[in-house]
């Protein structure tokens, strides 16, 4: 699971209203090599929940000094964009789980695939 995906995932357990962001508990993390596209990163940043990204990256030990809040003019800062690129696309949680912040329900991650299926009684 990449952090870009994590940024969009939310808990949908019945009755939960504050199911975002999911807490990450990782037992295995991998870093890949993905082609850097500055335009991609630039345009993706406004679509993100920035604080959720930074917290998640921090937890996995890949924060790389990303600031808690976005600085203006980040579009021209290639150094910054490369760090965001790495956090979004290159860091991957292979084994672990995601936890709903409200209900505590855990969704396992195995082979990089989070299993978000709910049981009958949770829907």
């Amino acid at each position: 699971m990449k952090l870009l995906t994590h940024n969009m995932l939310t808990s949908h357990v019945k009755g939960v209203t504050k199911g975002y962001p999911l807490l990450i508990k990782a037992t295995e993390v991998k870093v890949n090599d993905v082609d850097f596209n500055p335009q991609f990163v630039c345009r993706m940043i406004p679509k993100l929940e920035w604080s959720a990204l930074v917290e998640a990256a921090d937890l996995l030990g890949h924060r790389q000094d990303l600031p808690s809040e976005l600085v203006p003019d980040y579009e021209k800062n290639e150094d910054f964009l490369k760090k965001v690129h790495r956090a979004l696309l290159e860091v991957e949680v292979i084994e672990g789980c995601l936890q709903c912040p409200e209900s505590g329900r855990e969704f396992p991650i195995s082979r990089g695939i989070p299993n978000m299926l709910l049981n009958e009684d949770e829907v």
Partner: protein
Amino acid sequence: MSSHDGEDTAEQTSNVSTPEETDSAIITVYIGATVPTGFEHTAAEEVQEKIGVDARISKDRGRIYFPISTDKLFQVHRLRSVDNLFVVVEEYDHYQFKESKEETLMELQQLASKLPWSNALKVWELNRSLKKKKGHRKGGNSTRVKPDSEASVADTRQQELPRETSPAGGDAKTESVADPESCQQDSEEALPEARLIKFRVTCNRAGDKHSFSSNEAARDFGGAVQEFFQWKADMTKFDIEVLLNIHNEEVVVGIALTEESLHRRNISHFGPTTLRSTLCYGMLRLCKPQVSDVILDPMCGTGAIPLEGAIEFNSSFYVAGDNNDMAVNRTVNNVSHIQKRRADKGSSSGLPIDTVQWDVCNLPIKTSSVDIIITDMPFGKRMGSRKKNWDLYPSCLREMARVCRPGSGKAVLLTQDKKCFAKAVSQMGGLWRKVLTVWVNVGGLHAGVYLLKRTAAVFGQTPEDVRQPRGMAGTQMDERDNK
């Protein structure tokens, strides 16, 4: 017999075997390509974009033609919307067939020695040497002579699909000739391998007014070709495949440039309903992925669509999801396979794609966070059932509308269950608007690819998005059953 004047063929064929010396002169030939029916325009667009020429769409559906000069030949292998490629030897728009079968077949035989083979054969040879260099795709620089690993993967796993045919009345089967006469002489051609060339003829025939079958045409034409070139006929281990395509009055003679169909290129781990990559590509082009678009396939199966997207439209981000264990595992395996292949070639291997296991009717995705939804919906034939679709389709469309960005969002959905789909969409008029439909053929089934636009309506405020309690949906289905 009228001849189409499109080509730039240099010489008449009086004494043609295969070229003895390598001509370095650049020539222009016509290339024919088979594409998934319905996506001819998409393919023509891709040709314009990647090769810079206008393609002509043939009356024979599923085929396009375009000119190319030999110095640019390698570009044809970058085309992602094409199943098969061939070089045109000759093309007749209005071939006047003789009255009787005997005369017609005799004429076809005579044709073999009169056709302008020379340029087409040069292109065939050039193409063969291109294919031997690994990495002709994506401009790779390796020149190691090594069997193309993509082809061998496709070989071991490829499920046999029937060849493209257009069933416009009568006999449209693919036939090949296996001439019983065995050729004993040594080859006189100075081919690099200095051995006898093996060939076969494949004939596709469609039309009501022909006096002959494709079998007969292939047999007689093939026999004459063999006489003329002194090649050896071999149905399975051939070097050259000659194509004889007859569609009413249009006759095209070509030489194949692709061995096995390119349509299963990305997939090494097949599932029961894996879509061919050329169809995936056509669907992706339809939704015009932009830089940083978030693209979801919520019923991804083996991941064919998002994987093709991650490779070809790689400035977007793909999330592939399915509820089925085997499906998500196959998707991950397919992604890994491609990444490993890229790593072996020395390029950065990571693809912009992720896989999640989820229920499409209850997506664990934030509202309004997705730009495009693209998926192959269960037809209800090999996967799921028609009965399930009555419930599934509206739930899907509703949930997809929720996660899709209002105003700018799009969906490209493939399904064969057109009735159910039409009903579901009409019920969702406040959230989805139909933009266009492309009719396609998927494994022999007539299906539609629907392009929908997400309306600007915010989810939660239209009557459609009031979720029905689980019990009620079941009741509705029972009522329908009892009628």
